[in-house]
């Protein structure tokens, strides 16, 4: 269905009338938005397709509660649902993976050296390795801390947008971001110290 032809209100009404074709169209249309959120907040041991399916299952079961007149655009409502489902999945992650310097590929180790060094230029490695290293470091944080840093620094959402997505107040988002950055620095420092001990 072409972008200009898509009538969201009619599609939602049809889905609520149990029209399978409309439901399929809605899934296809929302998939890119949902999968972007899932990839940004995926627990290490979870499969992204499973989490995306869970989000859509929740979406259909809660669709009758969505009120268009409440001035919340449907896309924002879906994003909020997806972020909260990812947060629940991150909370359910029982153990955080152990971070070991020896497990890091050379490019990721270079990025970490850069972050902890006093005077060095950023490594000339590809963006994917920087992203993987950030994911590794973020996996050491609590689910809420990881979520706020991912939304703020990687997705470049504003504090207000994060507040709307998570349901946290604006001061709470700021406090969590501040504390999360501090913890992140500590994680990186502990990681380096452990590496020094391992070398000795």
């Amino acid at each position, binding site marked *: 269905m072409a972008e200009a032809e898509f009538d969201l209100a009619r599609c939602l009404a049809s889905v609520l009338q*149990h029209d*399978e074709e409309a*439901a*399929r169209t809605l*899934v*296809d249309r929302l*998939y*890119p938005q949902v*999968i*972007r959120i899932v*990839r940004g907040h995926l627990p290490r041991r979870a499969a992204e*397709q499973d989490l*995306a*399916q869970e989000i*859509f*299952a929740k979406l*259909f*079961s809660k669709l009758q509660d969505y009120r268009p007149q409440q001035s919340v655009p449907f896309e924002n409502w879906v994003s909020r649902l997806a972020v909260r489902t990812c947060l629940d999945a991150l909370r359910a992650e029982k153990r955080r993976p152990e971070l070991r310097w020896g497990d890091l590929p050379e490019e990721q180790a270079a*990025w970490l050296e*850069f*972050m*902890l060094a*006093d005077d060095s230029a*950023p490594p000339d490695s*590809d*963006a*994917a390795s*920087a*992203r993987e*290293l*950030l994911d590794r470091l973020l996996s050491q944080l609590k689910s809420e801390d990881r979520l706020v840093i991912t939304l703020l*620094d*990687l997705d*470049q959402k504003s504090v207000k947008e994060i507040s709307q997505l998570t349901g946290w107040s604006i001061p709470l988002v700021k406090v969590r971001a501040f504390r999360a*950055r501090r913890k*992140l*620095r500590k994680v*990186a420092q502990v990681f380096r110290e452990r590496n020094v001990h391992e070398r000795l």
Partner: protein
Amino acid sequence: MNDFDKRWQTCAARARQAPARSESPPPGFAMRVLGRKPSAMEMALEALWERLAMRWLAGVAAVLVVCAALELPNLRAAPLLKPGIENTVTQLAWKL
């Protein structure tokens, strides 16, 4: 912003340049989602059950409140039996 934070932001800026992966749904994804979606009958039964359960809960709470209100005047501790009856029962028990 301290030095670590600046360097973190540099790394995050580079990470944001990572090439986007495909965002089109894999084949059959919508079908699998719709397969998990509860059917119309299940949803109707669930809604009906939820509505009735709430009404039953409200009804039971109302009955409990009425019972409590009716019992309120009798809350004072009353003797179990009158003294005359107690004496008779004691004598009978003694003879047995």
